[in-house]
């Protein structure tokens, strides 16, 4: 089996622009959640959101492209630019593939365009209508970076980002591309904010994963992008390897369109499949970046799934939800959390779960409450669970 390594990473989210800012925020246990400014939050249960402030087109982006880019496009472009620069890969030369996970695509701009139409506004930017499909961002990335390899968009709700990484791994193993630019992106928009609000899934205060009093999630936005490549390909060109991508597992709950299976069987199946695909034993896992949305149901079922798949090991290792800092970034979440795993592998600490004050008897594992913790880890997992019962787990390993 061909081995897959990560040679570049890029990030933008509420904690800052760039992987350095993200890593420092995780180490300093900083929270990126603040009152929403992108649109009027009156009428909603909360104004809490993990928003990317002052998002502007980067200087290197051609003005003609910047003018047509959606908010999602911009986030993805910024993260991809950093990942490609770090990897030192020539995006145009090598048939670089692209896989992106996203759920809303150009919806943030399109819903405003639609609203303007509803109120009969005369002058509208009709080009916005073209940015609606979720696959638009991949085409924009391919055009800007000159990528000539395969492209695909994954949209499996909140597991989109993890599945995008998984498909990239399969492409490299099957020799469909020597290297793949992959990750996840989503931007905040009224459709998702109002939807989670209507489902009573938003906490009024910053989300409290695994806390007894948790009452739902906090939405966020951002992007994380990676360059994945075949290990020998990376070695041959002298690239610096950030981590090895050992494998992933995916399952469906086949249970309910919004609610996860309460027994966690689907989530446990994804964990087990990820271990099998990675040829890793449960007792080799040193840290888990949890899905940890802070909904009452998720955190209990995820705890059950971790115990089912990892056995006694689940009680001995740190597990944390970085959504308490960066919010739930939906299609970007899996990719952002993969980056948190890489930070843990490389920097010798595990990120915390913030706002965890009152332990829940049903959530009785070590969730690294409130402060990051110095801790060397070698093999880590990240979980992502989406609407419709889409479960994905990934396994990464440090190098050296």
């Amino acid at each position, binding site marked *: 089996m061909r081995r897959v390594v990560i040679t570049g990473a890029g990030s933008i989210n509420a904690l800052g622009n760039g992987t350095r800012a993200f890593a420092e925020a995780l180490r300093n246990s900083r929270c990126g959640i603040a009152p929403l400014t992108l649109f009027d939050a009156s009428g909603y249960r909360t104004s809490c959101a993990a928003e990317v402030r002052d998002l502007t087109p980067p200087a290197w982006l051609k003005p003609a492209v910047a003018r047509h880019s959606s908010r999602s496009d911009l986030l993805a472009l910024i993260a991809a630019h950093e990942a490609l620069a770090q990897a030192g890969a020539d995006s145009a030369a090598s048939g670089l593939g692209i896989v992106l996970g996203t759920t809303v695509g150009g919806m943030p701009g399109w819903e405003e365009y639609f609203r303007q139409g509803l109120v009969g506004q005369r002058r509208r930017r009709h080009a916005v209508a073209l940015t609606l499909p979720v696959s638009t961002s991949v085409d924009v990335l391919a055009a800007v970076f000159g990528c*000539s390899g395969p492209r695909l968009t994954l949209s499996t709700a909140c597991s989109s980002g993890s599945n995008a990484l998984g498909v990239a791994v399969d492409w490299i193993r099957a020799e469909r591309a020597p290297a793949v630019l992959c990750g996840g992106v989503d931007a905040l928009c009224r459709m998702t904010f109002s939807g989670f609000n209507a489902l009573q899934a938003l906490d009024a205060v910053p989300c409290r994963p695994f806390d007894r009093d948790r009452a739902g999630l906090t939405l966020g936005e951002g992007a994380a992008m990676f360059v994945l490549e075949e290990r020998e390909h990376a070695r041959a060109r002298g690239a610096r390897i950030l981590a090895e991508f050992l494998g992933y597992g995916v399952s469906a709950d086949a249970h309910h369109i919004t609610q996860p299976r309460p027994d966690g069987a689907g989530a446990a199946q994804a964990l087990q499949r990820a271990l099998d695909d990675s040829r890793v034993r449960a007792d080799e896992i040193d840290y888990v970046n949890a899905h940890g949305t802070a909904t009452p149901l998720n955190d209990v079922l995820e705890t059950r799934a971790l115990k089912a798949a990892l056995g006694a090991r689940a009680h001995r290792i740190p597990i944390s939800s970085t959504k308490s800092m960066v919010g739930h970034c939906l299609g970007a979440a899996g990719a952002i959390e993969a980056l948190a795993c890489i930070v843990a592998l490389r920097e010798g600490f595990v990120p915390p779960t913030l706002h965890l004050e009152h332990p829940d008897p049903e959530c009785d594992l070590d969730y690294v409450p409130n402060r990051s913790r110095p801790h060397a880890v070698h093999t880590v997992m990240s979980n992502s669970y989406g609407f419709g019962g889409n479960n994905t787990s990934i396994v990464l390993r440090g190098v050296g």
Partner: protein
Amino acid sequence: MRPIAVTGLGIVSPIGIGRQDFWEALCAGRSGIRARPNVAAGLPRLAAALPTFAARDFIRSPHLRRADPVSRTIVAAARLALADAQLTPESIGPERLGITVGSVLGDINESVEYLRRLFTKGAALVSPMMFPNLVLNAAASYTAMELGCTGANLTVSQGELSGEQAIAVGCDLIRAQRADVVLAGGGDTLSDVVTATYRRFRALSGQRGGTEWSSPYDAHRNGVVLGEGGAMLVLESTDAARARGATIYAEIVDHCSFGVAAPPYAWPRRAAAAAPRLRAFLERTLPAPAGVDLVCGSANSSRRLDGCEVDLLTRVFGEAAAGVALTSIKGAIGEFGAAGALTAVAACLAVHHRVVPPLCNFRRPDDGAPFRFAQRTAESRRIEQALILGIARGGATVAMHVRRAGE
């Protein structure tokens, strides 16, 4: 690359529900394109809409009530495909049955209605029942719930290649042993907002003069007619299909996917960059370089896409082009994001029945186009190897090599 057997076909299309009705209508040259009622004067009126079908025959009541029309289409196509393959989730093992669905916009009409309520009535009055259907993976999730299958479940999107890409990902799931059987395909729906966008950019037939119609590859083609529908294919390893004595409609030998330079929102102007990529794929996957008997393209009656496809294929096949039959089914079903899933069905049935599906409204090709274009009636022909070709706005390109299953 291990070939993948196609053993079941489920279709919900403007020209028929189910494999048999679809194929009969296609071979009879029937088009699902009709004038839509209540269209304002001066605007394009044609579209290929789905006939009403009994969704309750395919989807159980708690889901039937909640599922959006696109999800119902895909669940129905999945059930039809499994029945056609003479498989059940239990016979496969529900944890080994995967699902891959391709869609561009999911049920965009639901999203529009949701936003209309949000912006006119306020956040407090939007229905929590509507929101779950707005995620693109709703259809794949309803299918898993309906069939009780817990295997890999992925929803993909890549513009007009969403259907082909879902099938490609499905084949790879089996090759990577992530599933034994995969239901793969896709669906999309007609909607006023998509029609408005095509109209705004003057891409619909009749908007730049001439009669409103859909005539892929025809010299007088003048724009797109939109459609809707869905199809799901049962994919499994050839060994497994043979072992259980299944009818193998066709084998998917391999696929390739690449990008050529294009503006993100338009089809490429030129095919020169794609030609060496496609040629290299065919050299890798085909027994003989001139071995392709039939190409099922994605031509949708637009000036640019159809011309780009013929240009690409001419560059790739050279002098052999005269022996290659070329067809597209968009004149029958219209253009929509996941139409490629139906094109794939047509290609499988074409190699199975050894019949070239006709080109609706075709009279004569562009000057100098060297192919043996399908005619307006079906033609029996010795077909061993077929190529499914798709080019999306933005320059993404997919080719899939399909062959007749060995006796």
